[in-house]
């Protein structure tokens, strides 16, 4: 570029300079995300049609699509108990989400009004969420251990039989002559989920509660509403927005959750969920193509569920 053309060209306007700077600032972060998230995502789709074993990784030609087929998809649906796994995944995500939000709402309601030691109580309530998942899963499995866990020791002292909570698939409860079969290990991982993530819901609901106008509450009080009525007709409707967002976030994250179940039960005893099955395909079967296919299915199913949610259940902030 000569100095002649440079002087002829008009200097960039303020808006142009701003746009240029904007791109320059946003580019590095976008590049990292593009290369390490979006590209792998697309590549995953292509790999899901190829037969790739872990041992041939170094020699495999990823651009060779002459053998491309849907065999990986057929395999993951037929070999592993796909529909059972899907059912478990949905049950786990749904129950885990509902229970953690319910528990979080309960915690937020009781600590809404100031009392002595409230900030301390609040601090402790955040512990399950803040602590590393690896530590809390092992604490749970030790506490629930059949021979030297504290929970089973208490059960024995109370005259019950010890129970292997995390390795037993079904537990027959005898409720006044009614026999109810409880999926025991699955119930335990769902309870873990509720315990670990209630602080997240608690924080969100708490923030919303504190932002509610006091005038509505006072008006309801003047009208003689009871506390239950006030909650049902005044507070709850105003929480609808935050509850829908919470449900969405928690459901997505629980649906994709790998660590918690892998560390608690390893996917045994009726707790196999899709993310755990994906890693199994990679680690135990050394089958990359199938692992990729299963992860694509996971993403598609999640997208479909989200579509259903947005169409029929989602409510915007009131």
């Amino acid at each position, binding site marked *: 570029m000569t100095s002649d053309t440079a002087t002829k060209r008009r200097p960039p306007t303020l*808006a142009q300079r*701003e*746009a240029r*700077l*904007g*791109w320059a600032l*946003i580019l590095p*972060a*976008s590049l*990292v*995300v593009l*290369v*390490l998230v979006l590209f*792998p995502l697309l590549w*995953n789709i292509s*790999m899901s049609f190829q037969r790739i074993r872990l041992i041939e990784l*170094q020699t495999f030609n990823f651009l060779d699509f002459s053998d491309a087929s849907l065999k990986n998809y057929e395999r993951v649906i037929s070999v592993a108990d796909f529909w059972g796994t899907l059912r478990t995944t949905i049950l786990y995500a749904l129950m885990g989400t509902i229970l953690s939000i319910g528990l979080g709402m*309960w*915690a937020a309601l009781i600590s809404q009004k100031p009392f002595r030691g409230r900030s301390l*109580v609040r601090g*402790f*309530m*955040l*512990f*399950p969420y*803040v*602590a*590393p*998942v*690896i*530590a809390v899963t*092992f604490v749970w499995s*030790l*506490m629930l251990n059949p*021979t*030297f*866990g*504290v929970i089973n*020791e*208490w059960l024995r*002292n109370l005259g019950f039989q010890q129970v292997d909570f995390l390795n037993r698939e079904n537990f027959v409860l005898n409720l006044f002559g009614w026999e109810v079969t409880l999926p025991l290990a699955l119930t335990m991982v769902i309870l873990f989920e509720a315990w670990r993530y209630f602080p*997240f819901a608690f924080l*969100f609901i708490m*923030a919303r509660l504190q932002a509610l106008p006091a005038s509505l509450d006072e008006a309801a009080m003047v009208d*003689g509403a*009871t*506390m*239950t009525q006030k909650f049902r007709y005044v507070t709850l409707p105003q929480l609808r927005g935050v509850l829908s967002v919470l449900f969405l976030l928690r459901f997505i*994250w629980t649906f*994709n959750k*790998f660590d918690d179940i892998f560390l608690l039960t390893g996917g045994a005893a009726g707790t196999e969920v899709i*993310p755990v099955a994906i*890693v199994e395909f*990679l*680690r135990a079967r050394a089958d*990359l193509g199938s692992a*990729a296919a299963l*992860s694509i299915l*996971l*993403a598609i199913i999640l997208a479909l569920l989200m579509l259903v949610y947005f169409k029929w259940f989602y409510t915007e902030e009131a």
Partner: protein
Amino acid sequence: MTTTAKKPLPRTSRKRTGRSTEEKVFGVIKWASIVFFMIITIFPLVYMIGVSFKPISELFRNPGSFLPSWNDVSSMETYREVLRPTDQGGQGFLLFLRNSALVGLATTAVTVFLAILAAYAAARLRFAGAKLVTWVILIVYLFPAVVIAIPLFVLFSKIGIRNSLYGLIIVYIAQTIPVALYMLRSYFQTVPAELEEAGLVDGLSRIGVLRRITIPLAAPAIAAVALYVFMIAWNEFLFALLFLTESRDLWTLPLGVQQLDNTEVPKTLLMAGSVIITMPVVVLFFLAERFLTEGLTAGGVKG
């Protein structure tokens, strides 16, 4: 109820008695609930710390007692064994601590730096791409890590950085940029634009404004974001498991703790390892609780 000339009076007084019993009941429920929540959150913590000091024989003999004796606490035997290098018969946690700290700090530094730049552009500068890019990054934020784990495993194996801490750091940066960007953007938007305009009028460049006005004003938020990013990297397990299982020298703490979970290692050592990984994040969290809880609800931190 007596009927009087003043109609409203008996009505409200009846309501008030009704409410007071309800309030009493709720008062009892409330305190019972607080006790319940304290038990379910504090007990596992107490149990973890208590058992971590005990010799395993003691846990076998009496699983119900989880409080250690003074001798167990002062000898720190379990902790010594967990921290000691493997060639001296320990579990080598000192090395894992170092690896985790390295990975956490490197991830935090790079992520926060890149996220500040991008968040500032997204919050303050007007240009066509800002909306699009932030949207894409947000979608990525909701995306399952397992879906990109397989291709990243392949990619990193191919270019030879899978068995290194660099590979892990790069993945963690990509995983944490979206949340850091999102949290910082919403904070930068609350910084009064007038202050920045005053800086521009006084002859600062945009970068100058960012450095001398916006960043100092946003310092608490930046600290909170940095802490979050550090915690995510410190706790991360899936990628460490996939990338580093074969190379023990490179293990981060989560991987180290997970490998303690086998029949040859006493469960009390597993608890000591768990305490070692938990304490730094819990201490950091309590030190900065207020910033963090505000930041959390602003950004919706993944977990």
